[in-house]
């Protein structure tokens, strides 16, 4: 054996003795968005800013009938033309952002609160509690969402609180299913069993073991769910049961100005465009994030 081989051999053996050496800490995994994702974030951020500062930058008030005539194309200060009552379309879109996005966000948050609480509870407790909640949930899921919304609002009247509540209950059902499935997956993991063997209580297990592991898939789903709620609220408004005139909202703006299409007016197109930009942007962000986290979201989706 040559001298060189000998030293190499010693090196290997020396390494073996410290084989449990600290492996290099892997770089912190940060989610890097693609350029599509970045543009989408910018679009969503833009609309959120509009929600907040909208009234102070809008050229007119949403209810002002300042235009010369209805269904006009862009002129002077009316950058997007006027609607069927001669109101400034741009101002109404800016005001409407508050209603559409605000109501959707509130509904989705409420849906998540209900869905996660019940879903994790069902997963952790199992047995009759799980059975009871799940069957009620299945029953609600079986009803067409718009139909259910129409009935509730027709019965209780249309106010923003009822709108938010209805959308929240309807969408909590799908959140419940995801949260329950995730919770059940996590509950059978050894680390949960270890916590049980230690004698930990249910709340500690939920807070420290289950929720941190369910957070990421639930967060990506949140974006998706928000889109559905925006479309739902818009659909209700389109049918005249959502936000009531004269307050503006993207969905009802499309309905109000639909007849304008026959005159070649864009008044119905602009709010539809606003809905599209917001929902598509959120979808693209969700896609980007779930692609980066190895598509695990897709598997968790029920």
């Amino acid at each position: 054996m040559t001298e060189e081989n000998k030293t190499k051999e010693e090196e290997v053996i020396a390494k073996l003795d410290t084989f449990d050496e600290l492996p290099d800490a892997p770089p912190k995994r940060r989610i890097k968005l693609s350029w599509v994702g970045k543009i989408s974030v910018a679009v969503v951020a833009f609309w959120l800013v509009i929600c907040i500062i909208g009234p102070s930058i809008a050229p007119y008030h949403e209810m002002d009938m300042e235009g010369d005539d209805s269904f006009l194309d862009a002129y002077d200060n009316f950058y997007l033309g006027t609607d069927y009552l001669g109101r400034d379309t741009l101002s109404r879109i800016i005001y409407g952002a508050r209603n559409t996005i605000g109501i959707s966000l509130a509904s989705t948050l409420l849906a998540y609160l209900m869905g996660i609480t019940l879903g994790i509870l069902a997963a952790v407790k199992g047995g009759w509690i799980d059975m009871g909640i799940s069957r009620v949930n299945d029953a609600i899921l079986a009803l067409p969402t718009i139909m259910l919304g129409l009935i509730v609002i027709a019965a209780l009247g249309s106010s923003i609180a009822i709108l938010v509540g209805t959308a929240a209950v309807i969408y909590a059902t799908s959140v419940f299913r995801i949260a329950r499935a995730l919770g059940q997956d996590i509950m059978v993991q050894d680390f949960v069993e270890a916590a049980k063997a230690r004698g930990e209580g249910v709340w500690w297990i939920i807070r420290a073991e289950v929720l941190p592991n369910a957070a990421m898939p639930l967060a990506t789903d949140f974006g998706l769910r928000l889109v559905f709620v925006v479309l739902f609220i818009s659909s209700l408004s389109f049918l005249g049961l959502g936000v009531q005139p004269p307050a503006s909202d993207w969905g009802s703006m499309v309905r109000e100005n639909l007849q304008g299409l026959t005159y070649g007016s864009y008044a119905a197109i602009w709010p539809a465009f606003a809905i599209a930009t917001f929902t598509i942007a959120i979808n693209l962000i969700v896609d980007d994030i779930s692609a980066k986290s190895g598509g695990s979201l897709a598997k968790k989706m029920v």
Partner: protein
Amino acid sequence: MEKEKLFEIKDLRISAYNEQKEEIRIVKGVTFDIHKGEVVALIGESGSGKTTISLGSLAYTKPGLHFTGGEVLLHGQDVLSMSPIEQRELRGARVAYLAQSAAATFNPAITIGEQVTESAVLHGVLTQEEATKRAVELYHALELPDADRIGFRYPHQVSGGQLQRLMAAMALCGNPDLMVLDEPTTALDVTTQIEVLKAFKKVIREENSAAIYVTHDLAVVAQVADHIVVLYGGEIMEQGSADQIINHPTHAYTKRLMAAVRPTPTAGMGTAVGSEHDRKVPAIEVKDMTAGYGGIVDNEPKVPILRDVSVKVENAHVVGVIGESGCGKSTLARVMAGLLPQARGDVLLDGNDLEGSLHDRNLEELQKIQFVFQMADTALNPKQVIGDIIGRPLEFYHGYKGKEKHAKVVEILDMVELPAEFATRYPMELSGGQKQRINMARSLAANPEVMLCDEVTSALDSIVGANVIKLLTALRDKTGVSFVFISHDLSTVASFADEIVVLYAGRVVEQGPTDEVLTPPFHPYTRLLISSVPEMRIGWLEDTMNKREMAVGIAKGVEITKVGCPFFNRCPMGIDGTCESESPPIRVLNDGHEIACHRTVEELEAAEAETQQILHGYERIGEDKQLPSAG
């Protein structure tokens, strides 16, 4: 005579690139040949690049890896420079790959026969009829039961060992030039391992096919390989014929690997316990306990596993529980931990009765019994840092908070020989052996009296596993904790335990001090287990197959029976009419050594003497055979 060179790997280099586009070399210039009819073993620990090289022979790398140099030649043709279409034709048809887990390879919804023949038919090597005929031939060659009809079954209808052999049939169906076997027996029980090894060896010889056999287990390699390549860190340390490497290793790393091979379990391997931790009552004890799954009706579990089990664990002792999968080893630990309430019988801690369910046990009782789970990967919450994982039992049981808690965490990390910086790391940032240490550290943090270790070394490399055992021994001496050490690996248990409990189909068939259990007389099942532990000796497989218990005992699974001795159908010395219907009496030998068998101690001793004689006889025949060829 120079055999035909079938396959060559020349200076193969494979690298990965990290985020900074730096090259990380995984395989650093590896060269070896395979001749027709030859089995080449790639041996090394995790991270030695053995799987990467074996996949490279299919011109495939895992995502993120790239071939950066060298050639892979099949019949002199470089497969790396082939077009993707040619490579696809190559894979499965000319080079076949057998993954580690048969259970994961087979699709549960398609019959076995369809899956075995699929690749050969898909590549146009054989027609469906030819392939089916060939598959049946292979089933016969692999000694599968009911060979003519097994192809019509579904994967869940055959045993794990049979499935592993069926995977070999799948690979061989299209008459490949080369088979790549990636750790095909690692996850199996020793008895199943033998059954699979024997079938592989026979079929490789009969088919005269060449194979790359990837494993970390030298004792297994000694049975199947003609040529051995020892790898470490992507480089060849040493290569040569099996005889040369096994009997005359020259490289220090090879010698090191040999030292970590499980020695044959024999008496005198256990360590003696000091008397300083002695107390009058056992730390934990189960008495006439019956337990199972599926709920309890009339003190009888719906799916019974354990029946009338009595085990005592003395203070500061290590009790090894062994048996094949499905014998109830983990169930026993789960009953002790309160995770599974028993149907009948008692569990006692320090002589005091314990409630069956952990919900009814008080904090102190919970703290004194700690369960260490088998897979550290799943037993540690990936979203908690090590400091929180170890800190939680400190806070939960002992009320440590803030700085005090952190100091204690560091102390416990030190006990498991890990640096204090680990407290801020996440489990996924650690190696397998380190995770297992954290897993044990969490239990240690509770300051328990009894630690229940469920197969804690089974998923680890031999050298890493040996270090974990060393650590456990040190902890026992330092803290006086009692261990219940569950393993299917008799040699690990023998090297560490003071007492051994042999479980078969939910019953204790033999128990006693390690030395007593490992010296004759043996219970026939203990004998089978001892005979099944591979020895690092060429020809061991053939020798052991000649033993009586092997002929009857292997290739049969564990069956839980309600009456009689469950081992009856695998026992070479069962008494017809008695063993299958009556529960065996417990024969008490010296020093608390108990054997549950209908045969008397004298009969068992006589059987052992006979086995030894047969073995000796064969060895002599072997010597005779060698003489003429040597002269």
